[in-house]
């Protein structure tokens, strides 16, 4: 049951990334399923040779951006982002793993809007085959993401399906109760 957060859950996902009998059509194609680990993606793409340092610099810039504007990425409804660079046969690849509470296409559309609104570039510009007109062509950006999505074959949630907003509400409630108990002393 999706609402039973007390019961850890795991889901095995077919190779194609979708459950054929539950496939839902989204605006840009089939929606990657929500699992006990919420929505998310794992984008893996080859970087343009010699651009490694740009990734590290972008990571530092993003960290500074979020420190200065903590709600910078709020519209993406994220739980976590993890970025890696790794080597395969001498080539460098970038892996972008995100866990979030909106569907794949909306995440990408909102990400384009954040980059546009803040005048930021995207780290994706350092990837081979990334569309140069991404700022004005969200559809091309989304297609790139879909083409480079590496679907999970298993996802697990210790507190399955719980959104980041629900977690934040629970923590606020805990803080409110702590405060209440302090006031009762």
């Amino acid at each position, binding site marked *: 049951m999706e609402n039973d957060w007390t019961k850890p859950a795991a889901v095995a996902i077919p190779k194609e990334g979708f459950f054929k009998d539950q496939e839902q059509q989204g*605006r840009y194609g089939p929606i990657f399923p929500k699992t006990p680990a919420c929505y998310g993606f794992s984008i893996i793409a080859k970087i343009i040779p010699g651009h490694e340092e740009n990734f590290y610099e972008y990571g530092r810039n993003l960290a500074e951006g979020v420190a200065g504007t903590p709600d910078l990425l709020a519209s993406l409804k994220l739980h976590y982002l993890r970025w890696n660079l790794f080597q395969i046969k001498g080539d460098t690849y970038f892996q972008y793993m995100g866990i979030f509470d909106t569907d794949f296409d909306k995440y990408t559309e*909102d990400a384009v*809007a954040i980059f*546009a609104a803040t005048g930021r570039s995207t780290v994706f510009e350092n990837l081979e085959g990334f569309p140069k007109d991404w700022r*004005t062509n969200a559809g091309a950006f989304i297609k790139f993401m879909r083409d480079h999505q590496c679907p999970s074959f298993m996802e697990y949630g210790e507190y399955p399906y719980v*959104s980041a907003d629900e977690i934040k509400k629970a923590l606020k409630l805990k803080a409110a109760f702590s405060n209440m108990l302090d006031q009762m002393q």
Partner: protein
Amino acid sequence: MLEFDDIQHILLERAPALAARYEFLTFRDAPGGRKWLNTIRQTVKSVAEIRAGIDDLRWVTVAFTWNGLQALGLDEASLASFPDEFRQGMTARAEVLGDNGPNHPDHWVGGLAGPDVHAVVILFARDVDERERCRIEHEKLLACSAGVEVLSTLDLEATPPLGYAHDHFGYRDRLSQPVIEGSGEEPTPGSGAPLKPGEFILGYPDELGPAANLPQPEILSRNGSFMAYRRIEEHVGAFRDFLSSQGQNSEEQEFVAAKLMGRWRSGAPLVLAPLKDDPKLGADPQRNNDFNYKEMDPLGYAAPLGSHIRRMNPRDTAANMNRRRIIRRGATYGPALSEGVPDDGVERGLAAFVICASLIRQFEFAQNVWVNDKNFHELGNERDPFIGHQDGTLEFKIPKRPIRKTIKGLPAFTTVRGGAYFFLPGLKALGFLAGLKSR
């Protein structure tokens, strides 16, 4: 600078009409279709012409489906340059739009679900007599336009009382519409700053920058737009029965009606009038849209998080709002159902055109993410109470101290009876299409 002399009036102007007629056409051969277009286009007025006119009695709009553009003989390269969602058409996008169950295209009327919908002629008329005169005129034109057939028609009339626009459920309408930069119109307080024209009119900069990825050739797309047509039946009897079951008296029932909408039926927003209706506020455009949610009602104690107006325009509680706005033009159809009278089974509802530069980014987003996402604002098991797909298993939650009220098993108050995606060309583009050569 907007080219007012080339933009079809419907994009920027709301005709003061009490009657309307939509005629859906099919082209059996390209030359016949182009000949018809070459005549009808003489009646289609630009924004500039409408603004200069003083005694207009009727306002005509012409638009085409992708199949219609193909049937007129547009070349393959141009056809391929249109966005995928428009090329596929509304029927193919049913799942994205939440058109399931009784709303599915399998149940649509007027031939709208099939591939023969090629064009729509939208007539707004000052009154029913003028509509009838225009109907006869168009009938004469069609009689001498070989290869052009009427697939279906819909007559529309303002529902009484006529002093203000409202739907069959009695809710005041047309309270929150975006304003386009450079249109000469001033937004009412609370409606936000004017939006870049490219959000609605092709060929102009949008909120992200210069226009891009437009249908080709440029003369075809410039000053054009896209329209999503929706014919939505309103089940007035079922709605009244539901309200009766939700309150002991009319005051309690009106309260629930207001909570579902986010406004009282008078138009007064719950954020500004949370406990009692304020009809003067509802009728005052300087005040009736002047509110936000983030600061004034973050938890939905006034307007519930899942109420219709909060879903259709989340204002300051959604990201990138300026990229999601839509313009709506339309009217009510079918006879009004008098108070206290059982439902007569006659179809009545709203039939409207949603205008935007990108169907996938604006109209489909609103349908998919705001109207039919069960988890909008973490609500868990709700869809839009009026236009979301309701199958009797969903809820509607009304925040209230100390404990919220949850209405379980919300019935469907509306059914989608038809729809289609249209391209609304500028006036020069109508001439371009009429002048196409046979392939």
